[in-house]
């Protein structure tokens, strides 16, 4: 990625060109805090539905509107999701946890405090193992994952750009207020924008696989901040960090971090000092800008929420959730690449669609041939599904039928053309591959005598081509093989046909 390409800081007065050498001089140190909305039936502390959108202020009640006298009651399903998420990354689930209040005023936060977790989060530690597009693998330690509640959403009216600054009034929608939110805090183990994105992609894949979140970036169900600092390569002390906010897609995470790294290098190279501050990412400008310095930081006055009792998680609770855990996307990826020998791109493609991956695994379990199976699944089968606008797993082809088809091609019972035809019939009608082969007479002809007869016919019908071959134009072999296949209506074993052609052309 562009960490190896020169980055030009268009915003800087000097237009300092950051050469690969300059970029190599510094090591970026990155930690990520990301907020993920949990997938639950109801909100975190009340019975309102946890669902995206809807008419403003229709999914609200006394609790999530913070009416006088209303009290929160924790959602047990959200707590279980947290344990599931933590265990998937090998985190420790402490036996005791609690909710705290984070106090600050904001119009879309109804209580003017957020129920969150300060010093006793539900999960502690753990490691996120991820892979990059180029096949490299990495890992990042988790500090903690804690549970909190989302805020409502403000809409500013009267300004041309929808921002608060020039607006004449603001409207607040509390439908999202109180939606359960987990905050995953990483250690500063990430060293590039690419790693940051790979880390986030793995978090997202894992949460989807676990069913704890849909992770829809476009609906804001995953939002993240990055703590970025730089240091001279080889240094052991951390530099001063800036916290980057307002990144709304993986693409903007990559761009924002790259831009911030470049900015900090430029600051240091021009003799300056990076200051601790919060910086906002401006998608349009492609730069970060200062929002708040350390001195202006909020004092959140955290204290244990007296409306909620401490959370006790028993060893039994943990064991029960642990028993429901399945292979993580990372483990699946490693199995595909290291055990099956699938290339990283196709392995990623499968892992990114966990429904397809599960379908694929079922087919491989029956076929015992992952590479041949993946060729079908991501090849013709994916094409058929795509053309009909459905998902492979929703089609009529069962994993068992595909495995049967793989078996038929591997044993040379049908050739690839026949296989394609069988698959198309399976897609439209379902059923068994073997039955289709028999019904449609697609069995490959590997009988030497039968193929030889066709070869003889073809050679007799094409004397000029035979002469050409013998005169040294051996590339006509393809034409002759094609003619044999055509004469056999596609059923001849093409390898056998070619062998026989060669034999006869050279012997006569």
């Amino acid at each position, binding site marked *: 990625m562009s960490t190896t390409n020169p980055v030009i800081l268009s915003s800087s007065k000097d237009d300092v060109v950051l050469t690969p050498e300059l970029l190599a001089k510094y090591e970026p140190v990155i930690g990520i805090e990301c907020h993920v909305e949990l997938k639950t039936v109801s909100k975190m502390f009340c019975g309102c539905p946890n669902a995206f959108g809807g008419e403003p202020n229709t999914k609200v009640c006394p609790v999530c509107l*913070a009416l*006088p*006298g209303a*009290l929160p009651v924790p959602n047990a399903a959200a707590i279980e999701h947290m344990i599931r998420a933590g265990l998937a990354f090998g985190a420790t689930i402490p036996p005791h946890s609690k909710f705290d209040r984070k106090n600050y005023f904001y119009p879309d936060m109804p*209580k003017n405090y957020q129920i969150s977790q300060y010093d006793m989060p539900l999960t502690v530690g753990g490691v996120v193992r991820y892979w990059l597009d180029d096949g490299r693998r990495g890992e990042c330690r988790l500090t903690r994952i804690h549970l909190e509640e989302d805020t409502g959403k403000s809409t500013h009216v009267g300004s041309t750009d929808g921002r608060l600054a020039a607006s004449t009034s*603001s409207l607040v929608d509390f439908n999202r207020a109180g939606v359960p939110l987990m905050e995953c805090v990483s250690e500063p183990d990430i060293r590039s924008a690419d790693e940051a994105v790979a880390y986030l992609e793995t978090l997202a894949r894992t949460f989807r696989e676990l069913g704890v979140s849909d992770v829809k970036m476009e609906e804001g169900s995953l939002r993240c901040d990055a703590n970025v600092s730089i240091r001279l390569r080889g240094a052991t002390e951390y530099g001063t960090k800036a916290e980057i906010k307002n990144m709304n897609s993986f693409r903007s995470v990559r761009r924002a971090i790259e831009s911030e790294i470049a900015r900090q290098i430029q600051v240091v190279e021009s003799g300056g000092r990076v200051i601790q501050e919060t910086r906002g990412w401006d998608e349009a400008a492609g730069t970060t800008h200062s929002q708040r310095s350390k001195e202006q930081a909020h004092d959140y006055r955290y204290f244990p929420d007296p*409306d909620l009792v401490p959370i006790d998680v028993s060893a039994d609770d943990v064991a029960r959730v642990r028993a429901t855990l399945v292979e993580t996307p990372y483990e699946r990826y490693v199995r595909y690449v290291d055990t099956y020998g699938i290339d990283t791109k196709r392995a990623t493609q499968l892992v990114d669609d966990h429904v397809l991956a599960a379908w694929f695994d079922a087919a491989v379990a029956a076929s015992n041939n992952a590479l041949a199976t993946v060729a079908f699944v991501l090849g013709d089968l994916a094409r058929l599904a795509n053309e009909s606008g459905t998902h492979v797993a929703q089609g009529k082809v069962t994993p068992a039928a595909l495995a049967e088809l793989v078996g038929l091609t591997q044993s040379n019972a049908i050739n690839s053309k026949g296989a394609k035809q069988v698959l198309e019939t399976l897609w439209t009608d379902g059923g068994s591959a073997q039955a289709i082969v028999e019904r449609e007479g697609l069995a490959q002809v590997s009988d030497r005598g039968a193929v030889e007869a066709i070869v003889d016919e073809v050679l007799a019908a094409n004397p000029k081509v035979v002469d050409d071959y013998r005169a040294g134009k051996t590339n006509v072999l393809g034409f002759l093989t094609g003619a044999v296949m055509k004469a056999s209506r596609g059923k001849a074993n093409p390898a056998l046909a070619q062998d026989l052609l060669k034999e006869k052309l050279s012997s006569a």
Partner: protein
Amino acid sequence: MDPIHDSARALARAVNARDASAAEIAEALIPHAARADAQLAAYLELTPELMRAQARRVDERVAAGESLPLAGVPLAIKDNMCVLGTRTTAGSKILENFVAPYTATAVQRLLDAGALPVGKTNLDEFAMGSSGENSAYALTKNPYDLDRVPGGSSAGSAAAVGGFAATVSLGSDTGGSIREPAAFCNVVGFKPTYGRVSRYGLIAFASSLDQIGPFARSVEDAALVYDVMAGKDPLDATSVDRAVEPTAGHLREDLRGVKVGIVKEFDLAKLDPAVRACYEAAYADLERLGAELVEVTLPTADYGVATYYLIAPAECSSNLARFDGVRYGLRVDGPDVGAMYERTRAAGFGPEVKRRILIGTYALSSGYYDAYYLKAQKARTRFAEDFARAFERCDVIASPAASTTAFKFNAKSDPLAMYLMDYYTIPVSLAGLPSLSVPCGAAVPDDGTRPMPLGLQLATPLFTERALLGYAHAYERATQHAQKLTPPETANA
């Protein structure tokens, strides 16, 4: 049947037996409460329509064969509890026009049991005060002397029951807000164990201390109300899921063999001689009734008020943050949202509320948290331990509920002097114990001529409400102090 003076038990019995109707009780109470309230200002709002509608429902249910524990019992409700369709202000300007869209669990349980809502009662703003004088709306008078305070913060609920403008009422007690006004108004005021009664729908002051409880003119009536309200509420995570023993009808009638702890640190010598004489007589009565007095020690007693005035303001600073002008209540517009917050809260909150928000904000601030809030929490644990140790030597602890009789309006302008009114009740609150005040006699104040009531505070271990109410019932039965005083202004009512 006398709808004004009869006990809740007697009224419910009459209605269930169809000797009386809830409707006739309502029709008697509605004009009477309005008349009494013209002098007392106990109510912020009378709810005659609600009362009539509820009386009709109760009569229908009774006619259908149901027996309701509070059938036709007139109930006053402190105005920090939400009741669907009623203005619910918590005594604050900031909620002047707030109409509750739901009903508090405790209130709902009483309504379901047949109680008739007379109205919403006055209180110190957000339940912060010990005299009722911090209400933004009205000065509730003590029914025993209209020149004196009824106590607080449940000022109107105590005055309404004491002045016969309701049969029973609901208050909330954070550091003494039920027990102190009960003592001042010659009624029983009962604060159950923290977590016994749901707080859902009670406008929070200090969540870890707030507890709803009844006022009544007898222990038996308080027990009747408590029995209906108590128990786990799925809408309040801090309500305790623990079996509730029925208390009404199960109260002991004597004190033989009961060990009553007298706290060494609660030195009666500090009190006014007339008040002291009254409490000494009360202790002597306990002994005369067969109880054994044992001295217990509460070494932390003098730190109660300080501890309380860190924890309660800290919680209130956060609890009251929601009153911001955005969604409901008062809004004073400004050029931006920050100014709107400031103007709204400056105009909406009274001085005592502001003082506590400031103290609490300070106590929770980064750099001060450990020295103040955390230390106060540790002290709180000590209170619980000290009480547990004391209860190894006794069954119940007796003490004054308040150190004086009801004082005159504006007599305590120094906030600290006002805070000290809760000297005896606060340690019990910090430990979460069940506790009540039962009338124990009267004393003529220095600045008056008429004897004013006093209350004896009793406290027992966590979740021992039946025992506590039993001791109080036995004492009340033998002494009949409440009956010896009659509120002068309502004597002819």
